[in-house]
């Protein structure tokens, strides 16, 4: 293999793909980035077998071939090379790569490229295309609700669904909080989709996609999902299992509805959280006519916050985990939030005012 490319091109490709490198794997080749040239493109690949990223960039190819190099050295090398055209040449006889820049050269020892696992083949047709900005926004609204412990594997993922009407729904829950976000697809999807994508994959995807109009293409096989953004392809296994139907837990009626400014709530809750014992994390809110009262006392001190709000229904007093409460509110991008309560121990519904495509649910803590 031999090619030449600008340092920045190489650096970008390495920075993007290295997120998928297996950090502590018994297979040393998995800690490598795979470099392959074909025609005038260079493909850089990293995978931990569950999750992988592949990135293609244009280069001047002199000779086609492949090489696998430890990511730690390659990525720090690329960020330190001078900004100029770099000549890269592999020597398959001893698995080394020679980087020539100006009058200098650096040789890195690598692994046999054929030991690197094959990247799964992308299916022929994308099942879904959606604007990057829309998808990024949807991810932001649900990712906070993904479970962090491996207790029940389905809850470490996001349920991605497309129904016959062409509505994309993302659902995530860790059983204490739940978030549901919908989008009507402009292009009708080819088929009905019903998969669980690991939260970790979507977190990486969230960092890679930008708030732009360009589209992201989604491909699905029986047990894998692929996200393609321009020259980047992200592969991930799907989580097996059945995601429980969230609709059965939605409260069918509520006794109290309140509308308040999101920022006021966040600021008040942040002040409350200063006093909350991290072991308990629970504070109470009194929902009453024209206002919400946060009150709380510990050995550290006490706080009482009053926030103006419009209430309809009966006044009620509910306890919430302050950390979850803040996560829910921070995922709202509207100015006002509508909170619907159906009892001290029933799930509370949070909706951004004037937006029907999103809601989240927080289950109270009871005394």
């Amino acid at each position, binding site marked *: 293999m031999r090619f030449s490319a600008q340092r920045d091109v190489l650096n970008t490709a390495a920075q993007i793909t290295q997120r998928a490198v297996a950090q502590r794997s018994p297979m040393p080749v998995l800690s490598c980035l795979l470099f392959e040239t074909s025609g005038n493109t260079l493909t850089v690949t990293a995978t931990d077998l569950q999750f992988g990223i592949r990135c293609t960039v244009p280069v001047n190819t002199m000779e086609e071939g492949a090489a696998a190099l430890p990511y730690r050295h390659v990525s720090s090398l690329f960020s330190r090379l001078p900004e100029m055209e770099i000549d890269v040449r592999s020597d398959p006889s001893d698995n080394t790569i020679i980087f020539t820049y100006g009058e200098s050269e650096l040789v890195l020892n690598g692994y046999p490229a054929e030991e690197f696992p094959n990247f799964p083949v992308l299916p022929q047709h994308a099942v879904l295309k959606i604007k990057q900005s829309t998808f990024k926004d949807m991810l932001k609204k649900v990712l906070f609700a993904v479970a*962090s412990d491996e*207790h029940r594997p389905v809850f470490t993922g996001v349920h991605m669904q497309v129904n016959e009407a062409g509505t994309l729904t993302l659902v995530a829950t860790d*059983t*204490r909080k739940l978030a549901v976000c919908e989008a009507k697809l402009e292009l009708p999807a080819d088929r009905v989709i019903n998969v669980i994508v690991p939260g970790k994959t979507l977190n990486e995807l969230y960092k890679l996609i930008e708030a732009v109009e360009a589209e992201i293409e989604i491909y699905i096989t029986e047990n894998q999902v692929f996200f393609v953004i321009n020259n980047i392809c992200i592969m991930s296994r799907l989580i097996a299992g059945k995601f*429980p139907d969230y609709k059965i837990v939605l409260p069918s009626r509520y006794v109290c509805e309140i509308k308040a400014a999101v920022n006021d709530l966040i600021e008040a809750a942040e002040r409350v959280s200063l006093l909350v014992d991290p*072991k*308990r994390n629970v504070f109470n809110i009194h929902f009453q006519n024209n206002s919400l009262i946060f009150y709380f006392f510990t050995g550290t001190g006490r706080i009482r916050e009053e926030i103006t709000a419009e209430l309809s229904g009966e006044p009620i007093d509910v306890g919430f985990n302050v950390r979850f409460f803040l996560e829910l509110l921070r995922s709202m991008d509207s100015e006002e939030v509508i909170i619907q309560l159906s009892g001290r121990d029933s799930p509370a519904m949070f909706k951004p005012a004037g937006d029907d495509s999103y809601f989240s649910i927080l289950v109270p*803590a*009871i*005394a």
Partner: protein
Amino acid sequence: MQRVILLADMNSFFASCHQAVHPELQGKEVIVAGDPRKRTGIVLAASYPAKAKGVKTGMPVREARQLCPDARFFSPDYPLYIDFSTKVLRVMRDFTDLVEPFSIDEAFADFTGVLHLWGPPAVAARRLKERIRAEVGVPCSVGIGPNKLIAKMAAGLRKPDGLTVLESVEEFKRACWPLPVRQLFGIGPRYEKHLRYYNVRTIGDLARFPLSILRKRWGKNGEMLWLCANGIDYSPVVPGSLDVAKSIGQQKTLPWDLYGFAGIKVVVLELSEAVARRARRGKYVGRTVVLTLRDAQLRFFARSQSMAEYTDLADEIYRTACRILYKYWDESRPVRLVGVTLGSLVKREHFQCDIFGQRMRLSRLARACDAVRDRFGERAVMRGVSLTEASINRER
């Protein structure tokens, strides 16, 4: 101001309790031990006459029987001991409100502010001993010193039924420095062995040993030991220090070795149930589960895992313990002892519900079972697994 701290240490406490219930056994050989048929056959406590014949705590019952064929043997009766312990504390609280239980058979009391009521330290201590003897019926050794450490060391000097006053640090040095370092509070066989390499054999050797070397070798603990050897201890007598539980644990030596996950899981579930019941009774919730196992070679295993939410539910404790079991335990090893502990306890002020209402249902179920057991006894409601072969709750 010089403090006057007192430590009361009940002598051979478990044996003394049985003697108090059976007055005819006063001054006789009494041994409290487990049941060899259930493989819990070790000596837990022995009265002084039995100790004089060589019976030691931790000795197998068979050996104790050979040394002391005429001794009266008792099975442990914890409710009885707790009852006696409470009575002793009640007497002590008549003297001062600053009473800190240190274990089931020891308690500290701060007499500094009440000497005008009870007289000089030695007189006050004698009155206390007499009242415990008369009202509870068990003997105790009392130590008095200017701090908790010296009081504790003083109580150990004369046993049984002793009374020792070490009025100052100087007196402590005179009395305790010649003693083997092993007798210092905080020194076990491990420290003793390591200290021998430094030629530290007595408490005095340790006190005169350079602090910098101890600190380098054992950090804070090394410094702590040096302070103890020098009779320095600033800790106050805190009445409520044992009122808040840090963990709740339950363990069981099995009547026979268990092979395989299926059997171990039965015992883990039964222990989880017992731990959860105790947590609910004390209004605690905990977030860490420790699984303890001991195999047939008495090799010890303990691992802990935290949960996402605080709990007092047997099912959640059990599931976490099982995850530890599957992750770390080799199924082919025979199991002799199983223990389940719920740690990181806090008082149950709130209970986080879940979206599917499952925690709520489990919580209500647990409380309903508790109510039945409170009224009709612990065996009134039991898990189905308690009917299987591996159960520790099954009647045999």
